[in-house]
């Protein structure tokens, strides 16, 4: 075969029609133009959609959880803290576990296998398998890589002191919102606000860059309560002891610092463990000291006497005839438990005579008494912010009948909460004034309180209250070695269905040291059904134990000789009911 060099190829000599060149050129140019138009369209007009798609592939919005604030006592000891836990959830359709896996899984997280299978067989789109499991357990679950089981971050609230501070603190629900007590009252401060940030993540899932604005989370604020952990424990411990000993239904105790109005302890029984709230009943949840009002009984007498002293109607040594122990006002008759005969005003308090108190009250106008009760805060809520806080019942003076004025003078026909009594006793423990109570630790004592009585009146009544706890008074069991104590017992019949039942509320309110009062302790025992039911037998010992421990823990100097007590039980005076 003859070889021909390419350039010499006869085919090239053939002249091609010129339109073919031009056609090709135009084809290429059109194609280029199409590309340019397309790219301008994509970059310039369609970019919003495409940009979103791109970002969706490498950008992530991450939630930043805010932690709920801690609650501490006045010394900074933690009472409530949130710590991260995991919740296990699943979309039932997606779960594929072999029977053996299911068994292991159920055992690992400690739930009933049948219950778990029931959950996974349900029609719902989303089920929680177990909520709030500890992080280390969650890691073990994650290590097994069970198909379709997912984890979610949550916070769980722990209360290390458990039932001791249950009513004070309350608790949060599973969504971390306060439901009771301080947790609810200060929810807005404690609760944090979750934030979010938009980031670029790389192939390995680690964050490489922040894009756009960050919404920083607002961390919950820590709250320091006025509560003193040690005093709270003492209060709870001795209250519990008294309730068991006296077979009582319930009880409450409040400890208040007289200098500042800070609430150092608040305990109620029955109580509950806030860390494990299964099988809760309503009675356990009640924060009795602020939500339950009761007829206080004789603990009100000192106020009646103080008003009479203030108005100059009586002097401490003025004598009042209480014989024959009965007195008829209108159609009703009031009586004393014992016939005392001629008593001085101071002895009316010491022996707790109803007749004496009623006779003193009869010298005063109803409106003056009402004004005094009102300025002491009876009939109006203590406004601490606790859920269900009540103000008790104080009827307007215009509606008072003489018999009511008489019974109110010794604490019947009026209802108050334990917290209100503790607040009102400030007038005797301080020099006649009242400062607002505080749940939170105060950095400085509040400025002057609202004055109700003159300092002179306050001191006179304080001396009478000291008599009441000495031998010959109603509550010698309230004495504390080393300290002078002042206080008053109260024993009241409970009202059930409008009539007085044969059930009692026994109480004791007092303060110490009497020379310069530092603490007020108010104790209430509901329905003591043992051998004793008088406030002096049931509530006063709780007062003494708590007060003694609290004063020691605060390092308050004794104001009496440190000698063992000699309580003469034969001489104990039973108060009138």
């Amino acid at each position, binding site marked *: 075969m003859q070889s021909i060099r390419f350039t010499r190829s006869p085919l090239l000599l053939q002249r091609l029609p010129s339109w073919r060149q031009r056609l090709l050129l135009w084809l290429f140019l059109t194609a280029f133009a199409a590309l340019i138009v397309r790219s301008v369209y994509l970059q310039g007009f369609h970019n919003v959609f495409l940009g979103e798609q791109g970002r969706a592939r490498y950008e992530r919005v991450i939630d930043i959880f805010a932690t709920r604030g801690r609650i501490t006592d006045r010394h900074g000891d933690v009472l409530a803290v949130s710590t991260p836990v995991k919740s296990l959830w699943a979309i039932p359709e997606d779960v594929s576990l072999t029977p053996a896996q299911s068994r292991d899984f159920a055992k690992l997280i400690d739930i009933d296998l049948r219950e778990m299978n029931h959950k996974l067989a349900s029609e719902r789109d989303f089920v929680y398998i177990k909520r709030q499991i500890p992080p280390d357990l969650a890691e073990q679950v994650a290590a097994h890589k069970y198909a379709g089981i997912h984890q979610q971050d949550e916070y769980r609230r722990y209360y290390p002191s458990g039932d001791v501070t249950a009513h004070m603190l309350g608790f949060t629900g599973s969504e971390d919102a306060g439901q009771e007590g301080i947790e609810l009252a200060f929810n807005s401060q404690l609760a944090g606000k979750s934030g979010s940030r938009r980031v670029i993540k790389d192939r390995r899932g680690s*964050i490489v860059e922040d894009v756009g604005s960050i919404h920083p989370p607002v961390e919950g604020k820590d709250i320091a309560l006025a509560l003193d952990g040690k005093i709270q424990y003492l209060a709870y411990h001795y209250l519990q002891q008294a309730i068991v000993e006296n077979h009582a239904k319930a009880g409450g105790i409040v400890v208040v610092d007289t200098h500042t109005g800070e609430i150092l302890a608040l305990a109620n029984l029955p109580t509950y463990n806030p860390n494990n709230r299964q099988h809760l009943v309503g009675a356990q949840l009640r924060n009795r000291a602020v939500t339950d009002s009761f007829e206080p009984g004789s603990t009100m007498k000192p106020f009646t006497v103080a008003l009479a002293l203030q108005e100059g109607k009586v002097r401490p040594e003025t004598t009042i005839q209480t014989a024959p122990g009965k007195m008829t006002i209108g159609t009703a008759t009031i009586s004393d438990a014992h016939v005392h005969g001629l008593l001085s005003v101071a002895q009316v308090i010491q022996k707790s005579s109803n007749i004496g108190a009623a006779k003193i009250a009869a010298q005063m106008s109803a409106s003056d008494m009402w004004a005094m009760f009102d300025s002491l805060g009876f009939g109006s809520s203590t406004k601490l912010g606790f859920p269900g806080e009540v103000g008790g019942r104080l009827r307007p003076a215009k509606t008072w009948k003489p018999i009511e004025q008489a019974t109110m003078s010794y604490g019947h026909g009026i209802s108050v909460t334990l917290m209100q009594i503790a607040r009102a006793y400030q007038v005797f423990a301080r020099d006649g004034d009242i400062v607002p109570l505080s749940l939170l630790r105060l950095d400085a004592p509040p400025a002057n309180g609202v004055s109700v009585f003159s300092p002179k009146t306050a001191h006179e009544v304080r001396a009478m209250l000291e008599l009441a706890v000495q031998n010959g008074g109603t509550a010698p069991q309230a004495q504390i070695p080393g300290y002078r104590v002042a206080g008053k017992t109260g024993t009241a019949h409970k009202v059930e269905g409008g009539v007085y039942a044969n059930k009692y509320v026994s109480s004791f309110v007092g303060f110490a040291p009497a020379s310069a009062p530092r603490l007020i302790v108010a104790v209430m025992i509901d329905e003591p059904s043992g051998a004793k039911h008088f406030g002096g037998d049931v509530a006063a010992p709780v007062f003494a134990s708590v007060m003694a421990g609290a004063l020691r823990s605060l390092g308050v*100097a004794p104001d009496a000789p440190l000698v063992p007590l000699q309580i003469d039980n034969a001489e104990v005076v039973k108060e009138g009911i």
Partner: protein
Amino acid sequence: MVVICALGAVNSNHRARRLFTELEAEQKRMRDLDVEWGQLQLEQSTWSGHARIEKVAREKLGMYTPLPGQIMLVERATDGLAANTPAMAE
């Protein structure tokens, strides 16, 4: 020239990202430590619970509240004020 500038930009961007990752890691550590602190506080208050301390003091160590006769008060001589804390016979 353009190529050198471009390479410089790439390099600095890379370095910025590496530093950012480090920052992230440290911030995570901070959060983890904070969580751990909370857990330790929790543990501490569980161990130092007043009920537990009382139980250990009474049962294990045989301690008791001093009786009135066993307490001696010490006056603070320097400033003439009575000492706040009674000397305990413990």
